[in-house]
């Protein structure tokens, strides 16, 4: 329960920082995606089931957080998949930084591809070869840079919030 509360606080904070602080920055290519970092960090601790639920909830929040403007559910789908996949790696007990970074890179790529893929199916004009390439590059690059700082912080907090895994 405490972990669920923590997850909620972490995700909402990440979302607000994303739209209020990160996105206004004038960075080359694009921006990092803080939510995927948090979903991966939490799912790695909580396992596939909670990872899925958490990813879905985080994605839904990201779908409605103003000024988002796309069909509701697209990010929910993307983050749910990523939460599930990252959760499967729960047992990878002695994770090194390299593993964590690799997981984050794969998760970032997956989120962009699922979001863009669903958009392409819906005929979203914003999804094109150029925008997908830019989004992939920026999200993977910046998330990989931030991963060594944010993932251990969030994972650690989640572990402390619920020291004994109960299921």
């Amino acid at each position: 329960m405490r972990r669920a509360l923590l997850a909620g606080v972490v995700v909402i904070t990440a979302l607000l920082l994303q739209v209020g602080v990160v996105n206004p920055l004038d960075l080359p290519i694009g921006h990092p995606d803080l939510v995927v970092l948090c979903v991966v960090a939490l799912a790695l601790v909580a396992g596939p089931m909670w990872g899925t639920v958490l990813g879905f909830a985080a994605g839904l929040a990201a779908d409605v957080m103003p000024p988002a403007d796309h069909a509701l559910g697209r990010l929910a789908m993307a983050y749910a998949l990523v939460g599930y996949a990252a959760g499967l790696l729960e047992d990878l007990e002695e994770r090194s930084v390299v593993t964590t970074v690799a997981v984050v890179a794969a998760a970032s790529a997956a989120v962009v591809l699922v979001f863009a893929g669903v958009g392409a199916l819906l005929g979203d004009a914003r999804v094109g070869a150029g925008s997908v390439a830019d989004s992939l590059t920026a999200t993977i690059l910046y998330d990989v840079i931030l991963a060594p700082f944010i993932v251990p912080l969030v994972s650690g907090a989640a572990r402390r919030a619920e020291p004994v895994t109960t299921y």
Partner: protein
Amino acid sequence: MRDSGRARVVLAVLLLTAFTLITLDYRSGSGGPLRRLANAVFGPVENAVGDVARPIGSFFSGLGHLSSYKSDNAKLRKEVAQLRSQLRLTDAERARLADEEKLLHLDQLAQFRIVAAHVSAVGGSLDFESTATIDVGSRDGITANMTVIDGDGLVGKTLSVGPTTTTVLLANDVQFSAGARLESSQLIGHVDGGGRGPMTFTLLDSQGSIKVGSRLVTFGDIGQKPFVPEVPIGRVTRVVPTPGALTRTAEVTPYVGFDSLDVVGVVVSAPRTVKRDSLLPPTATPTPAPSTPPPSTPPPSSPPATPAATVSPSPSRTH
């Protein structure tokens, strides 16, 4: 392994839910009730975050100027004390003041009724979208489909409106499109956002000619929604060769810097008519301006020349 099996079921259920949501929401479009609710719930928080984040940004950009406050000269101390109120303005704050001044200038020229706002959050959704949250809403008289401008020109249009916040579709978003007119002509077409690429202007006349350096203004829509007329959009930087096509296409560099938006204004109402080309920055810019006819050919009945001589604080932002 049992857990993993259960997780798979949960995943399947949630993916199906997401799929259902997508198909349902896809039909309701941008201004649905859910977006309004989201604006009502998250908007105030975003405004608060924006208020906190902005001074932090200006603090960092102001650090470089701290040394200039330290003068040992006793004679200068008094002066410094007097000037301190001005000096305390960091670069960012000064830039913002200039932004506000420019907006006011444009506003006075146009006689628009505008509601000024700050950008409190910027959208992205993995950098596919170009949207922003501004800190005014229905309580300030904002409704969907209003023109948003800043001191340089067209910023975008309002999408969904909450009580204290509004989502704005920026003009560089791929889904943005507005009717446009070439300066000092009757040639019309539409301007479309290009995402991270340039904006494009499509001239709906295969005979008309577009010249590099020509400037574009909004054409204005029926009932002035979403766009009021005569708002400067940008200038043509390249004419795309489209032999045989029924339309002509050009790349446009917008006047507005979408990467550093801060002070914007929502046009709540505009006069029935706005004088042609009256809002464009003075042509004193060192643009090549190939064979641009001097503004000495005003349409009939239009009184001579607006105060083009007034010292405008907006020397047309061109990169």
